[in-house]
């Protein structure tokens, strides 16, 4: 009976699960591709295991966020089950089984898609003279299954912990609850952490640029740590500050749409900070992959033979595209679901005298901000690092590759602009479906 209930619930909550399904499928497909690359790379004598590990880490963060989002959507339903007498243990098992069931389906679909893409793209390459298709498929599926198991285990533990903590009364209000904080001034500590870590990071970059070559290995080996911490601390600081500013009821916020936008951004500011940090890291690694791949593909870059260069360069650029697709697709899907869920708020705004055009404009503004906010810290990093590293590379690389880093940064920026415009346009068009004239006011409670 509980299996039937799980399946029926999953079908009914299709739209809410869409985010989960899309994220799991895409990310598992990417892990499958990266496992194939890692296996082939291992056979060729390269260690590329960091890639699937990185994707798995991103997936744990994203899936964790989506799990909590799902819990929020269905919290009232769970409260009803508990009121009817279902035990909490049983309810927790029911929900976790649903999530696992869907996750496993995503695993099958994702790995199939991932392997097919890999087959299509890489088997044309001369690197794959030996077609050990079955061996590659089996081994990559096994590795992906291990990663899937790890992701599900970590996320399930967190979800179980969260469900166990919530009482019936809290479940009834979970959907509408806003995240709060006891000490509004605690964002300042994140500001200090960000400042210190960012200084460390710049220090590492300066070390890479200015230290003699024999010592470069030290900053190179640790540079990722202050970078990641400073990205995380930056968003914790910014969102904490925005929340504190809003709670102080400053006069300036009561103009135009500032109050509404600030309230939406800070209603779940802790989660938003984490999600923005994850997406920022995605974006930064995407940029690094793009630059690395394009550099490797330069004919003047003679570190490897041509076939190896092609393979590695193409892999890096594929990783870049994959990370950008993760970034924009998942953010976009999240926005579409949020727009759909804000229909009641739109109706209230309509009653208060906002026209449909104004509401559309407001929604578009929010979409633009949310698509852009993870890029802010990345821009800061790029602003400091690119000039320094470009100078260093001008010293190392042949003259024909002078300022190559600046050029590649510009090209990457252009790609981002194109992606941004396309995805922004798509979300605006799709969100209009939920905001047409008759829909907003006709849905009023009268």
């Amino acid at each position, binding site marked *: 009976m509980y299996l039937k209930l799980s399946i029926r619930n999953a079908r009914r909550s299709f739209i809410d699960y869409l985010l989960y399904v899309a994220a799991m499928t895409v990310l598992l497909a990417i892990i499958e591709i990266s496992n194939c690359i890692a296996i082939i790379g291992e056979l060729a004598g390269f260690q590329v295991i960091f890639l699937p590990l990185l994707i798995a880490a991103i997936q744990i963060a994203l899936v964790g966020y989506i799990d909590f989002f799902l819990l929020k959507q269905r919290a009232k339903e769970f409260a009803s089950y508990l009121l009817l007498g279902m035990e909490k243990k049983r309810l927790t098992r029911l929900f976790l089984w649903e999530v696992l069931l869907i996750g496993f389906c995503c695993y099958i679909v994702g790995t199939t898609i991932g392997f097919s893409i890999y087959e299509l793209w890489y088997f044309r390459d001369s690197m794959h003279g030996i077609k050990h298709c079955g061996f590659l498929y089996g081994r990559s599926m096994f590795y992906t299954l291990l990663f899937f198991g790890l992701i599900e285990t970590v996320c399930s533990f967190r979800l179980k912990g969260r469900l166990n903590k919530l009482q019936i009364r809290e479940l009834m209000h979970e959907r509408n609850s806003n995240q709060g904080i006891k000490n509004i001034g605690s964002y300042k500590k994140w500001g200090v952490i960000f400042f210190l870590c960012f200084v460390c990071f710049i220090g590492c970059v300066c070390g890479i640029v200015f230290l003699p070559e024999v010592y470069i290995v030290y900053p190179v080996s640790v540079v990722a740590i202050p970078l990641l911490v400073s990205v995380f601390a930056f968003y914790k600081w910014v969102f904490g500050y925005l929340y504190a500013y809003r709670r102080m*009821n400053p*006069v300036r916020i*009561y103009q135009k749409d500032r109050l509404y936008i600030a*309230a939406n951004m800070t*209603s779940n500011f802790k989660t938003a900070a984490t999600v923005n940090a994850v997406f920022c890291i995605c974006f930064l690694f995407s940029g690094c992959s793009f630059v690395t791949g394009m550099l490797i593909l330069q004919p003047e870059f003679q570190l490897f033979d041509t076939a190896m260069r092609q393979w590695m360069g193409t892999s890096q650029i594929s990783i870049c595209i994959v990370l950008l697709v993760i970034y924009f697709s998942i953010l976009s899907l999240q926005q579409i679901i949020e727009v759909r869920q804000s229909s009641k708020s739109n109706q209230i705004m309509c009653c208060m005298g906002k026209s449909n055009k104004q509401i559309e404009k407001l929604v578009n503004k929010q979409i633009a901000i949310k698509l852009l906010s993870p890029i802010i810290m990345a821009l800061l990093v790029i602003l400091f690092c690119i000039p320094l590293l470009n100078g260093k590379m001008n010293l190392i690389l042949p003259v024909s590759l002078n300022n190559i880093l600046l050029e590649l940064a510009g090209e990457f920026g252009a790609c981002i602009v194109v992606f941004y415009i396309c995805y922004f346009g798509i979300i605006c068009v799709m969100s209009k479906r939920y905001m047409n004239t008759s829909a907003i006011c006709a849905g009023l409670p*009268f």
Partner: protein
Amino acid sequence: MNQIKIGAFISERRKAKGWTQSQLAEKLEITDKAVSKWETGRSMPDLSLFLPLCTLLEVTLNELFAGEYIAEEKLKEKADEVLMDVITNWLGHDKWELKESDTALQNVLEVENVSKLYENVSTGHENILEQHKTENNSVLAINDVSFQIPHGSFVGIMGASGSGKTTLLNLIATIDKPTNGIIRISGQNIVDIPDEATAEFRRRHLGFVFQEYNLLETLTVYENIALALTIKEVSKENIRPMIQSLSEKLDISAILDKFPYEISGGQRQRCACARAIVVNPDIILADEPTGALDSHAARQLLDTFAMLCREFSATILMVTHDVMAASYCDRILFMKDGEIKAALNREQENKQTFFAEILKKVEWIEGER
């Protein structure tokens, strides 16, 4: 002196300057409700405001009192006319005050011969369809309804499901347009308002209190009330004092920093009332506001409505099934089959007596079937 002509002239000059009513009110340091009253001819500016108003609108006193521009060649003639008018009025000065109180009784809402026909409707309720069916399976949801609601009154509409009260409220709220008839709010025919202008009309003239989902969940109570003022473009410096004074009157000062999910249903409804009244609407439309409340919270809310009428001269139109809620009204309109079947005015009776009369009326209307 034609107050309506003067009001129209002030409105014309204000719009020529590109100002909203709020902006003009801010410059004169008065409320925008006062400006609205001038422009609809319900009152005249205070003596102390004539000269500042003329300076802002760049008109002479003569032009203001004449309610029109005066050409050079007609200046002397018009000036004498205006002076004569003013002296006449001055000698009968108390008539101005009478006019002010007269306008207090003026109707805020006038519904004249309004009908609403929905065409090609399939409701799935064949018995209702049969009753109201016209040609081509159309449904006559509202049938030739007329009534007026004077300023400062608390009027209830009672009726069973399907009687048309929700449809009527939709028409008054500018969400839907009637098939026939006129609906005037503060003298303005809302049927003629183009679709793009309805949002501004709602912003300036209407307030809403629903049964549920009144407040935005991501905003605190304070911010929910402030949002209404922000949308109305009230000066940001005035927002805090307005909310603080109103919240004290409505006894919600202690919960201003709470989110809607942290307060009770009754408190949420009082906050919704605060948000509705803070923008000084001409009329507040309430749809089953006590529907989701227990009896104690419902009584508190209805006392709040009565207080709004008393202290803020608010005009409230409430749709309700609940006879207890209806007993708080000054007047009840009973709807059935899209028509107003009866009206009941509360004269000097107390609530209990009025309650009994309402019950009798409801039984009588039900018995008409």
